[in-house]
């Protein structure tokens, strides 16, 4: 088992719990940040292979800001080294289709969505698409 690192940025302890259990069972090393600011700090210290990011934390769009900061096209960005880390965004069912995302910077710079409620099998399937296991 490789030791790929996954950083979960989410303020909901219970939800983090449901994410952590299957991921750790599958052999990933899971870290957690309870806010967007803490998440941005931990990206530097942990240097994860994948980030799972919630949208609504302290503010309703905090997750969007985190993803935009990480993927900032600014050459002097302090997150330049981390801009290639895949991001999975946690959203509610039905809202997925209203969010636009993709490689274009005008859209939300995330790689995929995970719909709540979390289904462990779906979660692992999505994660494996972005982290070689």
């Amino acid at each position, binding site marked *: 088992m490789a030791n790929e690192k996954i950083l979960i940025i989410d303020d909901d302890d219970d*939800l983090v719990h449901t994410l952590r259990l299957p991921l750790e069972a599958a052999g990933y090393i899971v870290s957690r940040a309870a806010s967007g600011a803490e998440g941005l700090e931990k990206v530097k210290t942990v240097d994860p292979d994948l980030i799972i990011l919630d949208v609504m934390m302290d503010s309703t769009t905090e997750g969007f800001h985190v993803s935009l900061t990480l993927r900032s096209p600014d050459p002097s960005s302090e997150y330049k080294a981390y801009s290639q880390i895949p991001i999975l965004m946690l959203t509610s069912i039905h809202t997925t289709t209203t969010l636009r995302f993709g490689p274009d910077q005008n859209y939300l710079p995330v790689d995929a969505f995970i719909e709540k409620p979390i289904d462990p099998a779906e979660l692992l399937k999505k994660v494996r698409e972005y982290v070689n296991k």
Partner: protein
Amino acid sequence: MKNLHRARAELVEQELVYSVARFITMRWLAGLGVFAAAWFLGSVIRVPSPVAPLYLIGVVILAYNAVFYFVLRRILRLNRSNTSMFRRLTELQIGLDWMAMTALIHFSGGAESPALFYFFFHIIISAILLSPAATFVSAAAAALLVGATVLLEYTGSLPHVSMFAGPSLYDRPFSVMGVMILFVSALFVSAYLASTISSRLRQREVEALELSRNLQRAYDRIQTLYDSAQTINSTLELQKVLDRIVRRTAGAMNVQACSIRLLDETGTKLLVAATHGLSEAYVRKGDLILAQNPLARQVLANVVIGIPDVRTDERLQYPADALAEGIRSMLSAPLMGKKGPLGLIRAYSADVDHFTDDDVSFLAAMASQGSIAIENAMAYRALGQLDEMKSKFILTVTHELRSPMSVIRSLLRTMVAGYTGALPDSQKDMVKRALRRADFLQTLIDDLLDLAAGKNEMRLKEQRGPVRLDEIVRQVVERHDTEAGEKQLVLEYRLLTADPVTIIATAEGIDRIFNNLVSNAVKYTPGGGSVSVVLDTENGVARVEVRDTGIGIPEDSLNHLYEEFYRAPNAKAQVKEGTGLGLSITKELVLRFGGQIAVQSTVGQGTSFIVTLPSAETRAA
């Protein structure tokens, strides 16, 4: 009363103009008549007296008539409204006619002349055109002229022209005296009768005019009330309603200004809500404090109150400001709502004692009509605020209710999946039951919120735009892959067109429509069956068919399918949890996006839902 005098003057003036023209026309005939008579006397009867003077008189009459004719045309072209000019012209005509008539009488036999009777015409003309006094003066002038002529002829100072053979009337002094007395008295009696009748007729004409003006004004006001009802009620925006009321009221009452003041929330003062014709300074002079304003209190107690003279009335709170604004009298009417006074409407006039009883009833009518419109607009505004609160509430609830539910379901799923350690079957069964109930609760919350949002038309404000129908349907189908797999169903998506299918809608709405249909199909199709979703386009219409080999819908239930909370009996038997809201939401959404939904079903064989939606190109065209 000023208006009435003017109306009367106008009437007399019109009459003068028409009459002068008419008399000129008649005088042509009179002149020609004199000619004809001269010819008849000289050539047919061959009277002994000379007829040349008669011809001359005819020529003179025609000549001055021609002058009058051109003068009148000139006056009419220059200035129509100069009454004194017409009056002078009339007097001049009568004077010249008198001369001509007198000459005619002299040359046709004096007291013997049959032309004597023609003097009466001029008495009647004077009575119609001039005042009674002037008519009597005319009569006196006629009597004097004829009397003098006859006297001169009688005394021999003037030669007597004897028209016909035989003894002369002048040989019998009493006969001459009798003719003259009767002639003169007849002149004055005619003058009296004609001028009395004429002035009575004129009086009635003026009265009729006044009456018709009053009627016209009453009609105008009714029309204004009716129009106001139309325009005032054509908007629900409070400010527009108020502005229209004050503008229309000022216009219809023909007054300087009009204002509406509404009670504030505390009910202790009246704030200016709309004005027409008042200066900024006057509007800003201050609020009407009810405690200091007995007049406003009285009006709000549902009485229309007039202030006939601002200078002397002590009930006003700001008399000096009103005077400075040029306001001399006011009329205030209450705006009464269903639950009490709303405020007052006030009309302002620059004249002292301007307002009549008619004005009082008109303002009261405007006020009661305005009150309804104002109350409607207020209710509408309150509704709008409620709607806003509701949408905020829905947004909050969406987050606060949905989030914990989805976390509960996530936790339970993790447990069922065994990540918390292997569960004994009995416990696993319990957790699964809990999960099923939680799933149902989530659906119920989602549906109720959707329904609440839909019912309030909140979504009309949502951003519609071009969305990819083919992509959304694909995502929906993929979302159900796992569940279909677990039930061993074949779930397939077939796209029968190569081009992208774009429609005008919201992605969330379209997702909801097909998520409901596909999840129903998967839910009500027994294991081993199949669910197919087929998307095709034809003539600018996108058609999506969701077909399953499920339990089907009984014929009785087809009519109730889209009713809120309705569930077909066989569906209830198959799946206990269900809100009965899914299809009603689905239908509402389809209709909202300009589409249609149809269903075909056979119990035990399967169901097919067909949704058609106009494509973006069709909509643009």
